[in-house]
């Protein structure tokens, strides 16, 4: 069984969330969420489908506005940032989408170049090429550089999606269901990649998943979201050493060691 690599975790907070509420009409998704992520830490947010895990990281990235509460990312209050400030903050945030969200009409190279050429001015062609090749090499997919996203497997798409965020050297990584829909071997490779990204880029991460293998392999700390609130937090062992019925059933039906 993989374990998260030992990595120094800072005392400074990268993300700090307090009393976060979010509803969609009558549906109350988040109901008073508190969460801290320290620099260099991998926090896994666990929970059943539809419990608001993805909503949580979309609020952190400024894609959704919360109804109430504070969301501080790198000491900046996300909901109150101007468009320009939010864009600057987003340069420090990497977001890996559940379905990779690669741009269908572009090759892998164009996908990777896309944020770089628009956010870093005066880069020469050779510098862009070098950055693309480096980041592709770091996810082990140099051979796919001229392929279209439709020609890639699910695992390759995930890796390219992660590479696209890494090209901007983010300080924070947000992974939305990184292993969803992948076979166990590819899941293991993605888990390794998440740990490697932390080692190489010194990122702080939130990993949204309901895959307990992924949670155990990547998380320094786990937080269990249930009915819009965190019901338990701690290491993998601390979270699952309990008689709490909701957590036990989640463990029993999901986890095969």
């Amino acid at each position, binding site marked *: 069984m993989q374990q998260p690599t030992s990595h120094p975790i800072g005392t400074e907070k990268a993300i700090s969330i307090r009393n976060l509420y979010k509803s969609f009409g009558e549906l109350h998704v988040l109901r008073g969420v508190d969460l801290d992520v320290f620099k260099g830490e991998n926090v896994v947010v666990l929970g059943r489908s539809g419990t608001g895990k993805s909503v949580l990281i979309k609020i952190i990235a400024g894609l959704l506005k919360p109804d109430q509460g504070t969301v501080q990312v790198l000491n900046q209050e996300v909901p109150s940032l101007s468009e320009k400030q939010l*864009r600057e903050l*987003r340069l420090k945030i990497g977001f890996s*989408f*559940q379905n990779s969200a690669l*741009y*269908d009409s572009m090759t892998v190279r164009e996908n990777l170049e896309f*944020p770089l050429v*628009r956010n870093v001015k005066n880069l020469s062609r050779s510098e862009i090429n070098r950055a693309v090749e480096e980041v592709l090499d770091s996810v082990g997919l140099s051979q796919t550089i001229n392929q279209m996203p439709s020609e890639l497997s699910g695992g390759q798409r995930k890796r390219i999606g992660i590479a696209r965020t890494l090209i*901007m050297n983010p300080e924070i990584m947000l992974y939305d269901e990184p292993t969803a829909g992948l076979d166990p071997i590819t899941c293991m490779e993605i888990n390794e990649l998440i740990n490697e990204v932390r080692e190489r880029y010194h990122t702080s991460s939130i990993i949204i998943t309901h895959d307990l293998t992924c949670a155990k392999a990547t998380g320094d700390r786990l937080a269990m979201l249930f009915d819009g609130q965190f019901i338990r937090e701690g290491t993998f062992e601390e979270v699952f050493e309990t008689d709490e019925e909701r957590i036990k059933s989640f463990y029993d039906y999901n986890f095969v060691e």
Partner: protein
Amino acid sequence: MRRNSRDYVITRRIDNLLLNFYEAYMFMGRFFREAFRGPLEFQELVKQCYQIGYRSLPLISLTGFITGMVFTKQSRPSLMEFGATSWLPSLVSIAIVRALAPLITSLISAGKVGSSIGAELGSMRVTEQIDAMEVSAVNPFKFLVVTRVLASTISIPILSFYCAFVGLMGSFLDVTLNEETNIVAFFEKAFEQITFLDIGSALFKAIAYGFTIGMVGCYKGYNATQGTQGVGKAANASVVLSMFLIFLEEVAIVQITNWMR
């Protein structure tokens, strides 16, 4: 009780309609803000002009040519009754330049281009590609919407004049097969009755239709929801709404041009 629930449904529909108008107005306002704030995604604009303009040429050529030819064929018997077949080039050119070319081009483009923009952006929305652009600190509105609306506003007037030219060529073919004429005489006669106002109003119409098609397609696609079903709805609504708006604009512009004439 029944009356109350019916009133509620009507009120909600009116609310939704007004909300849609407001959102469309805000969307258009954002377009003008973003379009005039640099830098422009020039490469994407050229790519979209190629997609919208160049790739529509075969369809516009075929439709324009056949329209010109058929219109000439069907007008001949009526003019023959008055012994006025020599007026055919003028009649056809007035019909094509003033009305048919901008209208046919825009209706074809509403189907071909509008649906394609609606479906493409809708699919990008539901597969989170637009969100991915946003979180990578790139302005998706500028990259996707501004370029497509501008490309459509630039390309459709060009296509429209091309359609008029091809339509006149179709008409010339029919005229030359039935009457004794040559191309110089035909075009001299054809442009005899065409004024700057005709060309100006045709240009204005085509610009308005191009803008409408691009804007509606982008608005519907950019705001698509509900997965693949939403993509289909966005593509369909792009065509239906832009055609509806094109007809309204046609009536308004023709009325204004007639007042000016």
